[in-house]
């Protein structure tokens, strides 16, 4: 069933039990992003210290893809340097834009590789990117403040 290529088990698991979902302090930047086409919203806190993403916490409403993607992103990125985190972000964005042509680099993307199938569903790419874009924004703001 084609649905299974979209909804990998790891995505459904994160949707049911998202990680880092509950806003907490301290943070160096807080952002609020919406997906205006569907009304999904996310608030995301990021704590950047000495160029390292020390914490991410978030809250919001959205579909399984956006919720799981944000959850997995937060797990992947916490503890990485901002520049390494941005490399993962870049790899993920490329995967999303691949129209199903790319399988993605599992070394870099780890669990986020599960979203490879999303790139075949143009209407869902924005869902998968919502949390990542919020992180990008928040990290950039944190750096700019320093």
């Amino acid at each position, binding site marked *: *069933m*084609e*649905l299974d290529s*979209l*909804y990998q088990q790891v995505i*459904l698991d994160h949707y049911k039990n998202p990680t880092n979902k509950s806003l907490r302090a301290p943070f160096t930047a807080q952002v609020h992003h919406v997906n205006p*086409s*569907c*009304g*999904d*919203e996310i608030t995301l806190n990021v704590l950047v210290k000495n160029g390292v993403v020390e914490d991410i916490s978030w809250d919001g*409403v*959205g*579909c*399984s*893809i956006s*919720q799981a993607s944000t959850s997995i992103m937060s797990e992947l990125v916490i503890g990485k340097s901002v520049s390494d985190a941005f490399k993962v972000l870049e790899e993920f964005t490329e995967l999303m834009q691949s129209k199903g042509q790319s399988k993605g680099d599992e070394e870099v993307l780890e669990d986020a590789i599960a979203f490879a199938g999303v790139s075949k*569903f143009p209407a*869902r790419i924005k*869902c998968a990117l919502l949390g990542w874009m919020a992180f990008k924004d928040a990290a950039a703001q944190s750096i700019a403040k320093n």
Partner: protein
Amino acid sequence: MNNFSVAKIREDFPIFNKVMRGGNKLVYLDSGATSQKPLSVLDAERDFYLNHNAAVHRGSHQLAEEASEAYEKAREVVANFIGAKSDEVIFTKSATESLNALAYSFGNSKEGSPFYLQAGDEILLSEMEHHANLIPWQELAKRTGAKLTWFNIDEQGRLDLSNIDELINSRTKLVCLTHQSNVLGTINPIVEIAAKTHKVGALFILDACQSVPHLSVSVKDLDIDFLAFSGHKALGPTGIGILWGKAGLLDEMEPFLFGGSMIESVTMTDATWAPVPRKFEAGVPNMAQAVGLAAAFKYLENVGMDVIANHDRELTQYALSEFEKLSGVTIIGPKDISNRGAVISFTIDGIHPHDVGQVLDQYGIAVRTGHHCAWPLMKKFGIAGTTRASFYLYNDISEIDQLVQGVKDAQKYFKV
């Protein structure tokens, strides 16, 4: 047409022959967003381009005459369809443009004009308005200092009219309401509200996008002042909308788009306007689309608006009763069939509408998901969005069964 048959209707809509992903048949339950088009509409557009194409109201050649005649005939068909006079019907590109044209024109009017607004005046809306009948008025209020007020809605998704006499008062200048909610399906009691509007000397503007395709709508019977709708929800082409206004009001109203066609005379420093409706139709209009819309209305008339309304009702009644049986499913909107259109919005516990839509798509079922351009309404119900199924003359009961089965499958897939 006495022997109404969906199967026969569907023969006129080639898109239903399309094989969808996974080999599915198309179950199109998204007519609230846009309707599918019968061959006669496509043929009418094609015939215009093939045989009569020229810029209307210009030139003295044969094609210009034929194009102008086809375009003006289309205006007559539209006027008849809504119980109006031809020169009260203005072609726009969409209902959104129609409503914006009103808001801009009102905002440009001078003191003494019936459309002049200032601080202390009120514009009355409702919580169920589509963004197209909300944001133009928000912006007009900001420009003029007028205040926005609105009808609340109750839990069933009906207008709360308990404070109508406070809401419609001597400060009220405009009442802008939807005829039928695109989310809830609620059909509002327009005659009663328009009458109260006129009692205080205010103007009544109706967003008829969801009603004109489905019900017999007469501007005369409703006794309203302005009406807006789009062609593409009523079997017509995209790129054509209607603004209707009472003749006397249109005469007094300032145009909002300036340019060719809309003038009477022009000097280097000034210009005067052509009579209504040309005054409001600057530029070469969407001619083929106007002709296509006329073909759509002929198609609807041939089937019969009463027949369509009855069919809508049967489908909606059936869908409501089937949805009531589902556990974990909440209908957002009235559960009784009276004054209710052919649209059902619902939420499923534990599954986001986007995911519901994705599962349904797997079976070839097309629904709309999200906030439906009615974000404040979603907030009112405390939800991020709904899944919306909307029905039309080419849908049948078996498709509702498929929708219900799809909902059950979504619940199974997401284990809720």
